[in-house]
């Protein structure tokens, strides 16, 4: 295959497919065994300094926030983050200093809510380094290649752009059509973390609503932590096995965390907590405000349950359920400024 161009981005998370097969053979059990553990234990065991981390979900959708807070609480360092549309999670992980490198499809902003002051400050000061650019489909296809166990995926996006120039992709001539194609390298994150509505103790995780790129990411990642609104009996999974998006054999830890996506949304259960997100966007405009927020909501909280009480507990949850089901209007501080 004739190589035409090479992106200048740093290649992260790539392994020779045979090396990864060997790793899988040696490290991933095929046994149906009880993988339940606490969030602190899962983070201690499976999230290490320097790891390449990818969070499941997308933007503020279905993000395993209990794990994000625990990573910050355990003060992990030098993590490399998949910015696969990573928003609130990225902002906190960068703002707290846990993540100092990121591959960016989308980060540093919060869609309609505006830009993310904490992570922007970090990237503009050099405290956090962008290792490369990519697009959302590009990232999703990095995981697809990883899941397929192939070294790359050919695609037709990113061509002719600086997104490509600053990516870790290559352009080659397609031996069939003769046209240039983008070669997107596989990605195997060291650890990926997902929040799902239900999962059994073995790790069979079901998702309601859109899958985003969780199907591919879970199968590409070497270690997978699942947090679930509810851990259900294996029989419950067996009743509707077609809903299982992530099969047990790729999963390493299962943690029960009700309301575990707060302040992000859990489709069909609760909507974004825009009041909380708005508070973060407001106070994180200064380094002092960022530190104060992390003290109040993360470091000074013994665990996620204490945090949930602190942000309003059952009352807040009931309100966010109402908003999700269109029974109450959305309240958002950033909305007042529109």
């Amino acid at each position: 295959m004739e190589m035409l161009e090479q992106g200048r981005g740093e290649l992260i998370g790539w392994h020779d497919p045979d090396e990864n097969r060997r790793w899988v053979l040696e490290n991933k059990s095929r046994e149906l065994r009880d993988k339940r553990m606490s969030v602190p234990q899962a983070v201690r065991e499976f999230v290490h300094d320097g790891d390449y981390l990818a969070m499941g979900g997308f933007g503020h959708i279905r993000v395993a926030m209990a794990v994000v807070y625990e990573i910050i609480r355990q003060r992990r360092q030098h993590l490399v983050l998949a910015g696969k549309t990573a928003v609130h999670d990225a902002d906190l992980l960068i703002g707290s200093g846990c993540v100092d490198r990121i591959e960016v499809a989308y980060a540093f902003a919060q869609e309609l809510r505006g830009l993310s002051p904490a992570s922007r400050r970090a990237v503009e000061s050099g405290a956090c380094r962008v290792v490369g650019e990519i697009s959302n489909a590009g990232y999703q296809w990095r995981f697809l290649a990883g899941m397929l166990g192939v070294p790359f995926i050919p695609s037709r996006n990113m061509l002719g752009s600086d997104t490509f120039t600053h990516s870790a992709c290559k352009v080659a001539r397609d031996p069939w059509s003769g046209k240039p194609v983008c070669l997107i390298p596989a990605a195997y994150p060291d650890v990926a973390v997902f929040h799902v509505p239900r999962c059994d103790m073995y790790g069979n995780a079901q998702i309601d609503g859109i899958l985003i790129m969780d199907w591919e990411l879970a199968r590409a990642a070497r270690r997978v932590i699942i947090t679930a609104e509810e851990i259900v009996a294996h029989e419950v999974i067996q009743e509707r096995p077609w809903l299982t998006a992530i099969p047990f054999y790729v999963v390493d830890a299962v943690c029960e965390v009700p309301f575990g996506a707060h302040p992000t949304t859990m489709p069909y259960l609760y909507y974004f907590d825009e009041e909380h997100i708005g508070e973060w966007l407001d106070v994180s405009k200064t380094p002092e405000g960022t530190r104060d927020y992390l003290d109040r909501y993360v470091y000074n909280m013994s665990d996620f349950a204490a945090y949930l009480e602190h942000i309003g507990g059952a009352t807040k949850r009931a309100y966010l359920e109402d908003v999700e089901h269109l029974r109450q209007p959305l309240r958002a501080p950033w909305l007042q400024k529109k």
Partner: protein
Amino acid sequence: MTASHPAYTAMELMACVAARMLEDRRTVLVGTGLPMIGAILAQRMHAPGLVIIFEAGGVGPRVPTLPVSVGDSRTFYHASAASSMHNVMSACQAGYVDFGFLGGAMMDRYGNLNTTVIGPWEAPEVRLPGSGGANDVGSLAQRTMIIIRQDTRRFVERVNFITTPGYIDGPGARERAGLPAGTGPYRVLTQLAVFDFDESTKQLRLRATHPGVSVAEVQAASGFKIQVADTLEVNAPPTEEERRLLHEIDPAGMVIGK
């Protein structure tokens, strides 16, 4: 403009013009904000068969109220499918997506968009979010529509970083780069006007102005010389029905305002 037409706002007008550009029984992949509102309005007006697609996986929803994000549950409310990004982006690459509807930060005369960085990439003056799904949509949709606020800082001679390719540097450049044949920017909508692209040069061309806006004003709000089409149209102001629907779609005023 608002002074002489106090009945509607610039955002309302842009949303209506956006909606009118979309055709019934077509597929449109929309980004956050005005593109979403335009598509939802079109679906409630002249295009009930418009299939709205969201990059995170929602396909063909009847969106009840404006989503905050391209992935929240409003994007697959009463939908044909709650699928995945792989499904949606593959559909885009295989040719099933007629329109891609994007917002932008900076754009040049060839419709190239920058949403990545202001200043050098290695040492950014301002770091912007990056591509998100924009590069994918701008590369792969049959026709791309762009909504952008135009002024001399945003309409620039040459973007310093092509996040999402327009016509790159002229006719044939997209195909030479390997992008799908016949794709590219189709319309650009700003707070002042609607543009298309000259067939022979692939450069931006003024096509229609908003009510009360002069060609000179459009030119003054651009960092490069703008070509003007032989026949220049004027966009119709929002109707009462359109305005009513806009506030029904965005009751909180997230994009449209109160």
